[in-house]
């Protein structure tokens, strides 16, 4: 059992906390290209490089496509490799995302969750990261600056674990989390570095004595099987994430759960949500509980691999569930989170009525009134007076 380590209370933004995690991990290579609202992560890291606080080779690439391309070269070479991006940048590097996963490269990338054009918009939603959902990357969602730090620490260890060897995207909500100054706890450098350790690459390209060919051409005889192997690897990362998350929880004193289930034990009405909006949902749930309404919030912290069992356990016994989605599924009914929750409940033979909401797209204001409306809807949904079809929350 690890003992609680000494930590410093700091005032920091989510981006500053990601930079701190990067600094403590002292990566061999960081490749990055600027995009709002990710910029302050790499600007902060550039200062660490300039001040000699890290030994990192800092590669200031000419595009996000080259950023992930260089990360792939670097990670395959054997280096601990990080990057950060957002929105159009993530979309621009899309081609490289499944390659990083398919080549089983433990790259860690912070994503400042931001809307996708058009129209161009620099504010928070999850359209960018959900567009990268099916690429084989593990996806973590932070609620606040503290968790942006904690998730990055857990991500680095997870990616590089010998039983995982997969890229991890650690995401934080654009501006809301990336730029808002909050109270956070920073692990002391020594304990952080001991927790993180060093990367031990399995088949480094730079081992010229044992040459390997990476990124090969695989045809009908092997592509299908290699994809199944990747699916299995992503699924199998779950217990490793749990082990590492628990280890960090003991060291930091901050709990780690795939699903942060607030008040769900006895809740009649539960909101399922990702990221920073959980705060509003919980606040409204508290207010409702004062009035005797049993409200709960299930916030999903790890989206890939998806925690089906943990989510079903949190929702079990509820009379109605609302899922808030911050990215579209045009022409479909439910958003990406809604679809996962429906899958989880259906496969567990749960018949809890479900309703899906689209909210906060492009930084659209997320209010307590909206949360209140959702909980009111859930009572109607349980009573059968409304159906579960998708709604745009707060649409004028």
């Amino acid at each position, binding site marked *: 059992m690890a003992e609680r380590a000494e930590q410093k209370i700091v005032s920091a933004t989510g981006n500053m906390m990601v930079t701190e995690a990067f600094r403590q991990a*002292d*990566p*061999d*290579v960081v*490749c990055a290209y600027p995009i709002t609202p990710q910029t302050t992560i790499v600007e902060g890291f550039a200062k660490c490089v300039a001040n000699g606080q890290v*030994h*990192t*080779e800092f*590669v*200031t*690439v*000419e*595009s996000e*496509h*080259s950023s992930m*391309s*260089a*990360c*792939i*070269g*670097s*990670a*395959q*070479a*054997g*280096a601990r*490799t990080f990057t950060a991006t957002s929105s159009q940048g993530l979309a621009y590097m899309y*081609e*490289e995302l499944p*390659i990083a996963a398919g080549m089983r490269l433990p790259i860690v990338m912070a994503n400042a969750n931001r809307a996708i054009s058009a129209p161009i918009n620099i504010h928070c939603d999850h359209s960018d990261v959900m567009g990268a959902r099916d690429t084989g990357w593990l996806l973590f969602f932070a609620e606040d600056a503290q968790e942006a730090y904690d998730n990055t620490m857990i991500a680095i260890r997870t990616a590089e674990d010998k039983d995982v060897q997969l890229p991890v995207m650690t995401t934080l909500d654009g501006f809301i989390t990336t730029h808002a100054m909050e109270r956070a706890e920073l692990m002391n450098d020594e304990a952080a570095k001991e927790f993180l350790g*060093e990367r031990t690459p399995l088949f480094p*390209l*730079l*081992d*010229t004595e044992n*040459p*390997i*060919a*990476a*990124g*090969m*051409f*695989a*045809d009908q005889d*092997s592509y299908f099987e290699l994809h199944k192997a990747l699916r299995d690897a992503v699924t199998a990362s779950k217990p490793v994430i749990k082990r590492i998350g628990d280890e960090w929880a003991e060291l930091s004193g901050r709990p780690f759960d795939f699903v942060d289930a607030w008040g769900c034990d006895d809740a009649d009405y539960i909101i399922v949500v990702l990221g920073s909006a959980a705060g509003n949902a919980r606040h409204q749930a508290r207010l409702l509980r004062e009035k005797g309404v049993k409200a709960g919030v299930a916030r999903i912290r790890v989206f890939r691999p998806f925690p089906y069992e943990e989510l079903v356990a949190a929702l079990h016994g509820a009379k109605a569930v609302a899922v808030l989605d911050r990215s579209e599924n045009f022409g479909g009914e439910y958003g990406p989170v809604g679809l996962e929750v429906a899958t989880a409940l259906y496969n567990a033979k749960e018949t809890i009525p479900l309703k899906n909401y689209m909210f906060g797209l492009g930084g659209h204001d997320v209010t307590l009134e909206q949360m209140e409306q959702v909980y009111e809807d859930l009572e109607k949904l349980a009573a059968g007076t409304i159906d579960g079809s998708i709604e745009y929350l707060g649409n004028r």
Partner: protein
Amino acid sequence: MANLKELSALPERLAGGHRLCGGCGASICVRQVLMGAGDADVVCSSATGCLEVSTTVYPYSSWKTPFIHNAFANSAATMSGVEAAYNGLKRAGKIPADKEIKFCAFGGDGGTYDIGLQSLSGAMERGHNMVYVCYDNGAYMNTGIQRSSATPHGAWATTSEVGSVQQGKQQRRKDLTSIMAAHHIPYVAQASISNWRDLVNKAEKAFNTDGPAFIDVMAPCPRGWRIKSDETVEIARLAVETGFWPLFEIDHGVWKMTPVRGERKPLTEFLKPQGRFKHLFKPGNEQLLEQLQQECDEYYAYVERMCSLYAEEK
């Protein structure tokens, strides 16, 4: 300058038995370039294309060096990451200080002149210590002979067709070597697989350059050029002898042309043996042929002028 006997004693870096066509210029290019590295450790990459799909069919590899393929546009960016890792790991003491590795990125003209140009430009500008080699066969051969910006003016390709109102490619080819020279990197060269001594020498210089180096190598594709597989080297030599593909280098700002024996031959000697130019020799295209000769003369004169303007100071 290495002689043939010495070169033949060097380790073979690309094993036979790969799946490239007989007479493919790409594999000849790779073998000659890697001879320039002597017996140094080399890590290679390739853009998506014939070279990559034919040499690394899972689970087999023809490369006796470590090799990485990533995607089409990013052979240079990928190798820049490998080279960055080498520097970072060395700084951390995770690679011994005396361990030397050379880095060599390959790409066809599609992956270099077109889709990979930004990636290449970025890597060169950042100053990565690597050699980028373009095996230039003047079209997207892997996908079936579509025109690229390296395709010569007038050449037939499956997307620059010959028909009643169009005689092959309408535009002149891009002068990539000059674009790379404009990056003012330490070493830039243009070479041909036909002039092996010149190419191996240039590769050797490139590998021994501290910083980025670029070589554009004429490497014919029998399938796309509509020539016999035993004519590859001969046609490449005609590209040089007609002045279509002058051999030159820019070594730390000094332009220098490799002299070619004898008088410069008429361009038609390069064009005529190739099926992709056969329409040019039909009645009615005399003027286009004249124009191609004129463009070739202009380009040759430009290279000569640069070599005279930026010659080594006497």
